[in-house]
């Protein structure tokens, strides 16, 4: 029993450690054991335009997607968690739908849709940052909805009503009473949104274009041709960015509770 448990953890963790280890190898072609260790591949990776651009695009995209999905998702979550209205279940399933439709299917559909819009209006939307931002906000939204509604569970609705009865304006009541309750959910939702956007592959696959390629796509395109310490360094950078996000987020909420 312990044995299978160990195998399971090795299978999950081994690829990450392997790729990080190889990124320091002082060999041009991967072979074991290494001749020595170096940091040169990180410099080499940063000097390659596609990886630098990809990294910056993914970073910007993650931030934009997080902001957009927070902006539309937090109000919706509060209404969903607080109101009993007709069609509530339906609204909730619609907002969570981007989780359920497979990425490759949704990506293909959005791509055709954006091209169709292009043909109708003459404005380029597919293969632009805007198109990617739409797709990424969409996949981030369910995370916001799930984590923010979850943070309202167990919160005392009457506190808010008390504030309103005692004469607080709705906005004041929200800011002084509701906000402190949902803040951990908002932080967690924002963090997950960023990560989901940063690592997304299937959705972006159809929508990237020259000048707007994300880091995971750049990694995949490179890996289709070769695997070497440079790409290992790029992959390690992605691991570090996400780990950093998780460590920062861990100060505000318990990561293990998000699942």
């Amino acid at each position, binding site marked *: 029993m*312990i044995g299978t*448990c160990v195998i*399971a953890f090795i299978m999950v963790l081994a*690829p990450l450690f392997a790729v990080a280890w190889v990124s320091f190898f002082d060999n041009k072609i991967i072979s074991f054991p290494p001749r020595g260790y170096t940091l040169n591949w990180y410099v080499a990776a940063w000097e390659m335009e596609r990886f630098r651009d990809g990294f910056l695009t993914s970073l910007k995209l993650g931030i934009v997607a997080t902001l957009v999905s927070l902006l539309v998702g937090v109000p919706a979550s509060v*209404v969903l968690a607080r109101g009993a*209205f007709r069609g509530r*279940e339906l609204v909730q399933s619609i907002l969570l739908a981007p989780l359920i439709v497979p990425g*490759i299917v949704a990506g293909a559909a959005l791509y055709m849709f954006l091209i169709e819009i292009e043909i109708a209006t003459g404005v380029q939307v597919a293969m632009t940052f805007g198109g990617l931002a739409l797709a990424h906000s969409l996949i981030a939204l369910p995370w916001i909805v799930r984590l923010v509604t979850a943070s309202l569970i167990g919160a005392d609705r009457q506190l808010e009503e008390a504030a309103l009865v005692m004469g607080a304006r709705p906005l004041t009541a929200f800011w002084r009473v509701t906000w402190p309750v949902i803040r951990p959910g908002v932080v967690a939702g924002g963090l997950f949104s960023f990560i989901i956007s940063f690592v997304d592959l299937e959705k972006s696959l159809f929508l990237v274009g020259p000048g707007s390629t994300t880091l995971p796509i750049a990694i995949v395109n490179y890996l289709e041709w070769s695997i070497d310490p440079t790409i290992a360094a790029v992959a390690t950078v992605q691991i570090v960015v996400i780990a950093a996000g998780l460590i920062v987020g861990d100060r505000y909420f318990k990561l293990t509770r998000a699942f």
Partner: protein
Amino acid sequence: MGRVVEQGIQSLNGTLTARADSQAASSTPRSRAGWLLLPSLALVLLGLILPLFLMAKYSVSHFEAGAVVAEGLTLENYVRFFSDPFYLWILLRTLTVAFSCTVVCLLLGLPAAYILSRISHPIIKTALILATVVPLLMGNAVRAAGWMVLLADRGLVNSTLIFTGIISEPVRILYTGSAVVIGLIAVLLPFMIISLQSVFEGIGEIYEEAALSLGARPWKMFFRVLLPLAVPGIFSGCLLCFVLAVNAYATPVLIGGPSFQMMAPKVYEQAIKVYNWPFAASLAFILMGVTFILTVLSSLTLQKRYGTV
């Protein structure tokens, strides 16, 4: 990747939403706040629902090389898929790979999940859960790179085997079906472990203690008491893994190489490389349909046997 994390968590949090429901029912409606829902609904409508309808239209359109606008009303794309052994073979392979991955994930994940759920030391428990969850958030591209490093002809696995004298020539592992299965298992295991762990947490130790105190041996207790109680949860964990495996893109493309073809990469190829949108659209719907039918069929079977799912 991304995708991978997402779908999974949805099913895991059924309990949370259920509690939210019961709370909402007891509170008063707030009719004026409805407009707060509109921006988010508009986002999903514009980014997902309308595109899916458009794609549905494409999937029943006639393909004309060079023409982009969908025309006609025909089932020829679906007929082409189901009458061409090449595509049926790809579908069969996709299902076989997904099935084998699910079985192995269950065998490896079940003990891990059980042990995780019964660890009482909070720090060890958190560390192990993080070790399961964090790789899940790292992205499929990165994990595929890791497996390529491990499984390549001169990769870590082959080098170790040669160094220890077990083999003298590198064994071809990368760009084979088994490599894809290995890679996918690693991608899906965290989902299996996390969902089964919550199942075992939910069952609690009372039943175990009861069985053990009545004299059952640990193994008997596990198979006769714990496992039957966990069946519905185990089932949804397997379904989740299966669905994610059927729709996998990065792992088959990178670890399987160009000759190992599965469904999701084919959708991309037809839409972007061949530019046959009607066929790409019908492939996408077949992929979604197979997933959906299997989900419904298996939940019905389970419902029949266990009453609730």
